[in-house]
């Protein structure tokens, strides 16, 4: 008979305010459920046979270890504070349970001090649960809804509901067969059988790929593949890891012209960077140290410091488990930033750009689809946990709403780190891995979580996704690992490192092994969360917070001792070799023996068809209200309104280096164009950080959309005071491209418009090449995510093709930064750059349910001239404020400048455009700036025809706009502020 586990309840004392319970009641109220008062308590289930003596000591030990003496009290094997109904939420078996793990360690240590710690020295046996007791009697349906939509998520949580109090508490247990077996898989079947095999095992390998593998095994190796080998191919050759579509041969038809594209990546992205790098190298000024060849791009910041940038997406997991998905996204990108080169970069900042369905989405939810508002709330919570707990400031971001993100959200997570240029064992940015070096795994333990993540994220979502593909991050485990990496690398103990993300060990060791040309791994040495995993599962699992290190054998003892001291698990699991083979064993028996060259280069190339021609659209016949009313509506609309409520939940100031924050001004509400941070405390060298994203223009013209996103990032940096890369100025720019597109492979039945979707992607990449080479701003890293569709209940929701550009520019002195809010009455207000009749895709038309035709075009020659003039004005210190014009055009930009300061402005629009176009057209490469009156002449001299004098900053707190002497509107800054902040997300 199974023994009932011991449990401890920790609950607030009578009279203590239950803030968590209040939040639950409020959230329930939002669902139309009246819970009455809610009390929340924690349950710790101890799944160990405790001795009499240990049980007797438990009440004291539990109170001292688990409870706050002032606020909380504990009971053992007894539930107090029960009410009418309850919900009990715990992690599903095998899902990361940090709270339980910490309780396990705490109780174990305290009991051991009394000589009663038996059983606590092995795997986790204490598990945390949350008990919610409700004052009102709730029907099963309401309880169940609360459980699934407010208190937990069935994808990762076990939720029990009932009346009164729970009768028993169960520990989660993972029951695995426990007899790992080595199996081979036959590939001799028919094509139909091969496809069935691929589908049933979740391999997502295509027929040509399966044929290539079969041929390799039959002709070269003369045997059948093992289960592990087949899984390794599936992960290594997944879209996520191999970017098969970005490397495909594409036949593109643009209008009536057809041409061949030999790999989007090689032709546009890598070529742009190579062309730029060649130009700088020819001048003897190559600042790009690592581009595209490692986990993140590395550039030189100065003689001692290198800057590392990486941006990733974590879309599919965030659709299923928003909190865990976003958390894993942030932590995974962080690991790239300290797993580049030898490793050990110090995390400097995070960025987050989020695309969601509308918060008031009203279409019926499809099976497996979560409401966009829940996804948004969960993603924000996940980022909050991951960024804040790791002590990395979240400094820049954006939130974009569109109906088509309701199937899959886009969660872009970016990280910058700063790495010393030199370590005792050589240049920091170069991995130096030779045969004989040890393979060391560091960080979290391995479980079944996250098996098949790489293949999963390379496919569209459907109703049947299993929970195994979602991993829950542990920010604190990772913080320990990050500190350890920084220290170990600085001591010269690490020859190279990489993180374990998609594909787990198979991918991390597979990549590192290319440096020495081989590796031999013993899987039975890998630390596990629980027993019984199959060898291939150990090799493929994507359990989080793990790094793989290459370590010189002589340094191994010092590295392992340091890890033990810092309470980080580090294990030697094999050695790098030079025989060209990936040799994987389990207790000595061969699990996989793969030719590295074939594994990395043997994937058959795809050939795809693409086409694009401009859509047939017309300018809409929209009846506008008075333009002041339109401005107020725009300020309160979802894509423009204040992001303050989100921004304040992210620690954006830890590390003490923030100079321009997301919100500035005396009132702390003025939105900014770019973040500015200093790099250290011994000077004012720093960076500007900006992003550009505008999927709304993609329906009209994906080329202009991509060029516009590039321009948005660029102009944001120019606005704040960064300089475009200039010869002789020792520049240092990093840019990262992140494409997120729907399934773009044509299929007559399932993806009839696939050619057009791929055509859009081709146009986006062509724009990247043109902009990047024209402005001399290289892509130093990037990533693509190809299947952002939800297919469910016979319906498909595909994201609009989207590209994010994240740019970081060195600023030699961050103190020159200029912010957006107006500064003083009497300053002269200018529009810099030219407005065109380009309302197509604008927020104004969107407000009226229209798309329009005239998409904003980037006129890059004009843009460069304007940016150079702005740089000259910055250099002379002529700008009192500067804000770029994007969503909502000049009208919204001017209003934001006023909102940030509380000051008003009296302006007259140029007469050449209709007032709605002059105010709300979203033409690119423009700024609203203010200049001290005594600087106006100098400013005019520099900007010439590129600046239009609009009027003056006023002290009366009103924004007054005229055109041709006609008053268009006169609004109080308080009214503008109210619209902007109350409409906030």
């Amino acid at each position, binding site marked *: 008979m199974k023994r009932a586990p011991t449990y401890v309840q920790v609950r607030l004392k009578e009279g203590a305010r239950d803030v*968590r319970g209040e939040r639950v009641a409020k959230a329930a109220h939002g669902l139309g459920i009246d819970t009455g008062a809610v009390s929340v308590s924690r349950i710790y289930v101890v799944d160990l046979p405790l001795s009499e003596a240990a049980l007797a000591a438990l009440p004291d030990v539990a109170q001292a270890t688990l409870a706050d003496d*002032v606020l909380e009290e504990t009971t053992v094997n007894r539930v107090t504070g029960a009410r009418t109904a309850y919900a009990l939420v715990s992690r599903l078996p095998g899902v990361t349970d*940090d709270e339980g793990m910490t309780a396990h360690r705490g109780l174990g240590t305290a009991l051991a001090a009394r000589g009663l710690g038996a059983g606590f020295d092995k795997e986790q046996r204490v598990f945390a649960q949350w008990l919610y007791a409700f004052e009102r009697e709730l029907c099963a349906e309401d309880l169940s809804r609360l459980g699934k939509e407010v208190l937990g998520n069935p994808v990762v949580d076990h939720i029990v509901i009932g009346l009164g109090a729970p009768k028993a508490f169960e520990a989660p247990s993972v029951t695995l067969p426990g007899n790992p077996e080595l199996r081979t898989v036959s590939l001799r079947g028919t094509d139909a059988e091969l496809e069935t095999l691929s589908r049933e095992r979740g391999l997502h390998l295509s027929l040509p790929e399966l044929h290539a593998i079969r041929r390799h095994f039959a002709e070269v190796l003369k045997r059948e593949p093992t289960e592990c080998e087949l899984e390794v191919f599936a992960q290594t050759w997944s879209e996520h890891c191999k970017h098969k579509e970005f490397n495909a041969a594409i036949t593109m038809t643009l209008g009536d012209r057809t041409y061949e594209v030999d790999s989007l990546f090689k032709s546009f992205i890598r070529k742009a960077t190579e062309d730029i790098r060649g130009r700088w190298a020819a001048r003897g000024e190559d600042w790009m140290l690592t581009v595209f060849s490692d986990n993140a791009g590395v550039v030189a910041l100065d003689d001692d410091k290198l800057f590392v940038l990486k941006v990733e997406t974590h879309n599919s997991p965030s659709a299923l488990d928003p909190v865990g998905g976003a958390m894993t996204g942030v932590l995974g990108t962080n690991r790239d930033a300290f797993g580049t080169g030898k490793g050990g970069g110090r995390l400097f900042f995070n960025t987050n750009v989020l695309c969601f369905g509308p918060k008031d989405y009203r279409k019926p939810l499809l099976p497996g689809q979560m409401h966009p508002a829940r996804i948004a709330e969960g993603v924000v919570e996940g980022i909050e946990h991951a960024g804040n707990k790791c*002590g990395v400031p979240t400094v820049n971001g954006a939130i974009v709403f569109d109906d088509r993100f309701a199937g899959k959200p886009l969660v872009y997570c970016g990280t910058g780190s700063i790495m010393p240029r030199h370590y005792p064992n050589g240049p920091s940015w170069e991995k130096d891995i030779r045969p004989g070096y040890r393979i060391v795994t560091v960080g979290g333990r391995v479980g079944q979580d996250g098996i098949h993540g790489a293949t999963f994220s390379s496919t569209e979502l459907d109703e049947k996704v299993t929970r195994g593909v979602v991993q829950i991050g542990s920010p604190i485990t990772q913080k320990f690992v990050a*500190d350890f990496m920084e220290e170990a690398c600085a001591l010269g103990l690490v020859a190279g490192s990489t993180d374990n993300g998609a594909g787990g060990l198979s991918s991390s060791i597979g990549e590192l092994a290319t440096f020495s040309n081989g590796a031999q791994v013993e899987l039975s040495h890998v630390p596990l969360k629980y027993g019984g995993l199959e060898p291939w599962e150990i090799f493929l699992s994507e359990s989080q917070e793990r790094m793989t290190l290459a370590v010189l054998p002589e340094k191994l003892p010092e590295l392992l001792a340091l890890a033990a001291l810092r309470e980080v698990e580090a294990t030697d699991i094999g050695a790098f070799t030079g025989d060209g083979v990936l040799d994987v064993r389990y207790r000595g028996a061969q699990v996989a023996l793969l030719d590295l060259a074939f594994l990395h280069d043997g994937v058959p190339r795809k050939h795809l068809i693409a086409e694009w021609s401009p859509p047939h659209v017309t300018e809409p016949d929209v009846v506008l209200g008075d333009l002041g009313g339109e401005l107020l509506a725009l300020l309160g609309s979802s894509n423009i309104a204040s992001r303050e409520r989100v921004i304040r939940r992210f620690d954006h100031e*830890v590390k003490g280096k923030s100079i321009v924050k997301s919100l*500035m001004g005396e009132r702390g509400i003025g939105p900014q164009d770019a973040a500015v941070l200093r790099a250290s405390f011994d000077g004012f060298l720093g960076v500007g950080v900006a992003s550009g994203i505008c999927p709304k223009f993609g329906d009209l013209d994906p080329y202009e959309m991509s060029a516009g996103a590039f321009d948005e990032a660029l102009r944001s940096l120019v606005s704040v005071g960064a300089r475009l890369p200039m010869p002789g100025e020792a520049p240092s720019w990093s840019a990262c491209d992140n494409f997120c597109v729907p399934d773009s492979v044509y299929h007559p039945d399932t993806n009839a418009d696939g050619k057009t979707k791929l055509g859009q992607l081709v146009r986006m990449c062509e724009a990247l090449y043109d902009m990047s080479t024209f402005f001399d701003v290289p892509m130093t890293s990037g990533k693509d995510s190809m299947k952002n569709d939800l297919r469910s209940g016979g319906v498909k929701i595909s994201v609009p093709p989207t590209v994010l550009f994240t740019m970081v520019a060195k600023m030699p002195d961050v103190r020159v930064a200029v912010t957006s809010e107006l500064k003083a009455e009497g300053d002269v207000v200018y529009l810099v750059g030219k407005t065109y009749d380009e309302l197509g895709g604008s927020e104004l038309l969107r407000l009226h349910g229209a798309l329009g035709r005239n998409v904003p075009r980037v006129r890059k020659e004009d843009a460069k001239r304007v940016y150079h003039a702005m740089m000259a004005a910055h250099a002379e210190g002529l700008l009192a404020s500067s804000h770029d014009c994007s969503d909502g055009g000049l009208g919204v930009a001017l209003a934001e400048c006023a909102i940030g*300061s509380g000051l008003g402005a009296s302006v007259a629009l140029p007469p050449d455009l209709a007032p709605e176009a002059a105010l709300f057209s979203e033409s690119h490469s423009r700024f609203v700036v203010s200049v001290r009156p005594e600087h106006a002449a100098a400013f005019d001299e520099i900007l010439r025809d590129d600046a239009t004098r609009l009027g003056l900053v006023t002290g009366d707190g009103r924004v007054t706009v005229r055109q041709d002497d006609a008053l268009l509107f006169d609004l109080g800054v308080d009214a503008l502020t109210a619209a902007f902040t109350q409409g906030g997300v």
Partner: protein
Amino acid sequence: MAARIMVLRGYGFNCEEETAAGYRAAGAEPVIVFASDWFAGKATLREFDMLHVPGGFSFGDDLGSGKVFANRLKQGKFPGGERVWSEIERFLADAGTIVGVCNGFQVLVRAGLLPNLGGSFAQEASLAANIEGHFEDRWVRCAPSGMGEARFGAKPFDLPVRHGEGRLVFGSPEIRAGVHQRGLLGLRYVDAAGEPARAYPENPNGADDAGAGLFSADGRVFGLMPHPEAYLSPYNHPAWPSRFRAGTLKTDDESDGLRLVRALLSTKSAPRAHRTS
């Protein structure tokens, strides 16, 4: 002689770098020490005048913020068998001082070092979940009060708070009265009029009596929720561009954060004789 300060890092603390930069700028000699090195006997408080427990999320704030690290202080032992807590008691008895910011404050309160009216290091106060129910990063104004006026001067400080559990509550009305009698509430959130802030957002977490910082009864331990180390340069203030323009802040002014860091050094009572062993 410059004060030597042991600034802890590791276990999830994350403000050690800017904290050390602040003390250095204020003329002290900070040394960043991994807490695990201290517990392993590789560093000792005997060589320091002050212990600084910085902000962060020690042990992920599992079991309550600062709780697990407080347990380590109270229950942990050095390799030689001596209790960590004994070293802390001896350090304080020997005129050492302790400062905790944010997570460090949470550690000190949960370890019973603050306010310690009873002298037995029992927990007498707590830092509970913010009334708003979640983490927030925002700038607040704090004014010295009680013992704080003597140590920090009368001028208020603009500082950022960044926490989800910062609502100071007292274990009983008697403890609350004792804290006030002895003037231990050294820093309070204030509103625009300079009065103790009752309401959000000026009082960002709903703290009792607008308490932002708390002294121990003997004045040797001080904890606060706001982060002075995040405001070492005037350029860290969110309104620096407007204030520079208005002339109310100057580029070479000492920032409020650095002014407070300097004042925290004055928490150091008398010069200590440095032991070498």
